[in-house]
């Protein structure tokens, strides 16, 4: 398990996760995450060199269906559930061009 986690580490993680934390929240989260990671260090005692990772419980691979057209969701119903829609599309603020 890695070394201690600091508020600076948390700030980086929060940015990656698109979350905005106040300095007080960063401090608090760092303490809590640090406590958890200290507990999780129990697995450092295990020899895992010959163990294959397990990503899913039931071994299914390449699940295909027949290539036939099926009814999709109703476009207007989907857009009606969005915060802002316009001209049958999701409307978002500018992505580029602002500095």
């Amino acid at each position: 398990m890695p070394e201690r986690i600091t508020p600076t580490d948390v700030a980086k993680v929060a940015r990656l996760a698109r979350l905005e934390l106040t300095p007080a929240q960063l401090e608090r989260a760092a303490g809590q995450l640090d406590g958890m990671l200290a507990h999780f260090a129990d697995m450092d005692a295990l020899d895992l060199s010959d163990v294959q990772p397990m990503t899913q419980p039931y071994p299914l691979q390449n699940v295909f269906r027949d290539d036939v057209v099926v009814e999709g969701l109703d476009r207007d119903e989907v857009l009606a559930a969005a915060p802002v829609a316009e001209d049958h599309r999701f409307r978002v603020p500018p992505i580029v061009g602002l500095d």
Partner: protein
Amino acid sequence: MSSHAELPRTAVGIAAAVRAGEVRAVDVLEAHLAEIDRREHQVHAFNLVVAEQARQAAARVDAEVAAGRDPGPLAGVPVALKDNMCTRGVPTTCSSKILEGWKPPYDATVVAKLAAAGAVAVGKTNLDEFAMGSSTENSAFGPTRNPHDLGRVPGGSSGGSAAAVAAGFAAVSLGSDTGGSIRQPAALCGVVGVKPTYGYVSRYGLIAFASSLDQIGPFSHDVRDAALLLDVIGGHDPMDSTSIPLAHPSLVDVLDRGVEGLRVGRIVDLPEGADPDVQERLEAAFDALRAAGAAIVDVEVPAFGYALTAYYLIAPAEASSNLARFDGVRFGMRVDAADTNAMYMATRSAGFGEEVQRRIMLGTYALSAGYYDACYGRALKVRRLIHDDFERAYRHADVLLTPASPSVAFPFGAKGDNPLAMYLCDLYTIPTNLAGHPAMSVPFGTGADGLPVGVQVLAGTLGEVAMFRAGAALERAMDAARGVSA
């Protein structure tokens, strides 16, 4: 109109009476709505009660019966749905502000199957936000209270669904279980709760928390109702690519088989942590199954104790990815900002509660460059160890018994500010999810302060038949001890 006490209490009893034309579905519904009127303001099991829609559904069931048609195996059965299952046109919130006001454009497969079987959905139940928690205290809409003691938690994250059945607001309900979120609240509320084998029940329309661990299952008053519900909602679904493409045997049909010759395993290296009152009930459960003809055998699951670590790296990692979709674009709320990135950050920070943000950050950390191998990568290997240990144990035993929860229901705020203290509530339930196995909590008497205790029955992949045989035997033993005839 019949009162609540005069009507059948179980789904099996209600459906039989409604199908036979002895009782009207609308009367069953009104009796349950009356209970909701009487006690919901204290319990807060629901985020939303859909009384008018339920009345229409119940009337349709009665019309079917009147026309000589069979409405199905759950005819007129009032059912409550955890509010992380999509219901077309009906708000689905995950008890999060970020989804407030969102109406799904489709039904989850389980919702459609229940309706097709004649069940009547009465409402959407409260949960820990995005199913992250063990007490239902972490809901954006306030906590649910345990119907047995309003000063205590109902468990979580499916606390609303457990409480709804315990309080008589619905005959049965559905929850989801990622690390114990059905079995632990079932234990704390004194009802039956089942997490099936991963892939037994379709997850289509279940808002994902940790996709490789999530599974939907029933809450009920008795084991037979849980079996009936699973018979209805189980089975392959082309809309869920992780759904097991096999036909499942009827579980209702195996309940009376008994446990003669069944091998019941005691995990000799089970991590300590259960309170003495819970431990005492577990011993009584072994005694009851032995008396019913089962053989008790010792097994080892050495990696059991590492499950908490593996789970709290894997589940948050998957959650951090799944919850990336809540960004203010397609669903629910948005906090406006000058550009898209700022809008994402403002929306997510305002919309997600503290525990959800904490888990997203933990998961993002476990997946981030430099920490991936040491955190997520190692956790996946520990998951394999746990799975393989269980598989070895199931060569010697058909089912295993453990506590479902280390303690009876605890008071609000008891776990304080320490997330790890809350995480330890799932000590005995988490390994099952990592292995992908089925497990159920069966009420087995009371512990401290007269509060319910649940015993957990675990089985290997698709071991539902053995699990339900053992669960039914435990229930018969309890009924016999209480002088209730079967």
